[in-house]
């Protein structure tokens, strides 16, 4: 995980793409650093694939410019760009062997025959397909096809590798393994990866930075940690992981300490904010389930937000337990707790009266 976008290697300047009246991508500006593993994350139809296809050259932006390594590629066709793409469908040529598939790009480039042979062999070894060179794509498993697609895209040593939902077609077990392989290959070759995915877990694990998109616009760009811990909007908070969101109105602001009245929580919530909103404005206090403490006796610390409720539902997952707590205000809160001890304390049961609490800095105050 090198680079952090300080020097822009890929520069997307105010790019929009319209299909008729519909803005698939709406004024997106983004800088991606050299050697980054950058993810574009969003639900289906958010414009992430269109953005990727504009980077590859399959779509031309309606407005804006795209620069790669300082060169304006906005108008360049795909076959003249220093980028390669790994397709979601893998798009392996069914009538060619594995070796021919990987060699195709080099042949089009006019690389000498013996050099092609060497580079293809090297690349197939890197993705551990050395013994499969003569196979036909149909004879390969999904995971192996994925590696062929990766090898074929990487063999041309592109400046940027674009990956469209790279792991979506793999089964769960293979995914975990492939994720780390992708990361180690990226680390080894130092090529800038841009990944498009709808899977937030995948984006979190893989990426050095994530851009969250919705309805064609960029909502937030940051490291996985920033995105998870400091979402800048209700959309991001809700999209990444699980979160409890309390809608309410600001009743008091004391420097960075904001007190919010939330009816359905049945009490006042406290959150910290660098730019505190005005008293009386509508805000949202968001707290992740693992940031909430659960206890049967009332917690002492008066700084914390404290709410009373009963256990409405619980799920035991072995390493942790998930609770759904029904608050006095009638609202359900999700809480997760590590099962650190085996028998030291009594496990909570249905309908137990409990208190939940969290520290002010654990909550995020959202206005968007």
């Amino acid at each position, binding site marked *: 995980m090198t680079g952090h976008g300080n020097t822009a290697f890929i520069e997307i300047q105010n790019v929009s793409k319209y299909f008729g009246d519909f803005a698939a991508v709406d004024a997106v500006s983004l800088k991606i650093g050299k050697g980054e593993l950058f993810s574009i994350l969003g639900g289906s139809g958010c414009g992430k694939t269109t953005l990727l296809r504009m980077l*590859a050259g399959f779509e031309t932006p309606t407005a804006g410019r795209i620069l790669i390594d300082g060169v304006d590629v906005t108008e360049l066709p795909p076959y003249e760009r220093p980028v390669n793409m790994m397709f979601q469908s893998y798009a392996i040529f069914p*009538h060619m062997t594995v070796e021919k598939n990987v060699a195709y*790009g080099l042949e089009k480039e006019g690389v000498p025959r013996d050099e092609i042979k060497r580079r293809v062999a090297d690349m197939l070894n890197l993705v551990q397909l050395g013994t499969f060179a003569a196979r036909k794509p149909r004879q390969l498993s999904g995971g192996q096809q994925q590696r062929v697609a990766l090898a074929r895209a990487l063999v041309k040593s592109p400046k940027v590798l674009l990956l469209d939902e790279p792991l979506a077609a793999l089964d769960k077990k293979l995914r975990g393994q492939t994720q780390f392989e992708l990361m180690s290959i990226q680390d080894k070759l130092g090529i800038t990866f841009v990944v498009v995915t709808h899977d937030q877990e995948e984006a979190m694990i893989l990426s050095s930075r994530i851009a969250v998109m919705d309805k064609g616009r960029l909502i937030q760009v940051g490291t996985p940690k920033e995105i998870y811990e400091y979402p800048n909007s209700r959309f991001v908070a809700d999209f990444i992981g699980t979160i409890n969101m309390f809608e309410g109105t600001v009743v008091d602001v004391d420097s960075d300490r904001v007190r919010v009245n939330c009816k359905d929580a049945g009490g006042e919530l406290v959150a910290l904010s660098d730019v505190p909103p005005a008293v009386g404005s509508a805000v949202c206090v968001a707290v992740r389930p693992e940031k909430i403490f659960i206890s049967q006796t009332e917690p002492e610390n008066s700084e914390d937000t404290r709410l009373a409720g009963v256990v409405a539902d619980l799920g035991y997952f072995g390493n942790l337990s998930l609770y759904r707590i029904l608050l006095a205000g009638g609202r359900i809160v999700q809480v997760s707790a590590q099962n650190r001890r085996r028998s030291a304390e009594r496990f909570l049961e249905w309908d137990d009266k409990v208190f939940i609490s969290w520290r002010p800095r654990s909550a995020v105050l959202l206005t968007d």
Partner: protein
Amino acid sequence: MLWQRFTIAIPYFWLLVFFLAPFAIILKISLADPIIAQPPFTPFFDDDGSITATADNYTFLLTDKLYAVTYFKSVAMAAIATLLCLALGFPMAYGIARADERTRNLLLLLIVLPFWISFLLRVYAWMGLLNNYGVINNVLMWLQVIDKPIAFMYTDFAIYIGLVYSYLPFMVLPLYATLERMDLDLVDAAQDLGARPSQAFWDITWPLARPGVIAGCLLVFIPAMGEYVIPYLLGGPESLLIGRVLFDEFFVNRDWPLASAVAIVLLLLLVVPIVFLQRSRAQDEGRLA
């Protein structure tokens, strides 16, 4: 079990009765001599039970230059018509396969629509269009592009128009079926790897469309080779094709044995390209499987 065998037996029975048996009969007739009788050929077995088969008809086919020339001309015209259909049909099928769903269905309907009208009527319609005082000549003269009618009718040109017009759908439909199944990402991938659009076409689209190309070519070439109606109605006296010769031998000269021999040789001429293309298709499928 019995039921299963029965269902498998049906197609075999069908082929036996309606293809193999007539073929055997024609083969038998081709080995007889013509006589003025009913039926107009010598019986296969003599009164004393000996076989009377003769290869005279085949030797006649080989010695009379007319037949060789006619066969050659038929093969050539069918082949050219097939290539014309391919050249016209491929872009059509490609366009249809890449159109959005609603336009696609409409275009397919338009391709199939002519089948709702009798083939013979459609060929007659072309006579109306092509003759000296037909629509095309009249329009051209009215536009003063020409000052006297162009003789389209009764030429090879008219035959080609008839063949291409009639058999184009048989080329377009199988091509469409293969092109429509093709993953568009493959072409994008080729371009992404540095292929220009034309290179991507020849490297990816064309080889993957081959099964459709072969099927379409067979579906056009085979009937075009034996075509009788189109050359008869649109062609001139000099465009003597094998279908016409066959018809004349049967019904004008009433030389059934020679006509049968012509038919058998035609069949052999058709079997060669079919076997060849089928094998190459099997290879394609083997390659893809």
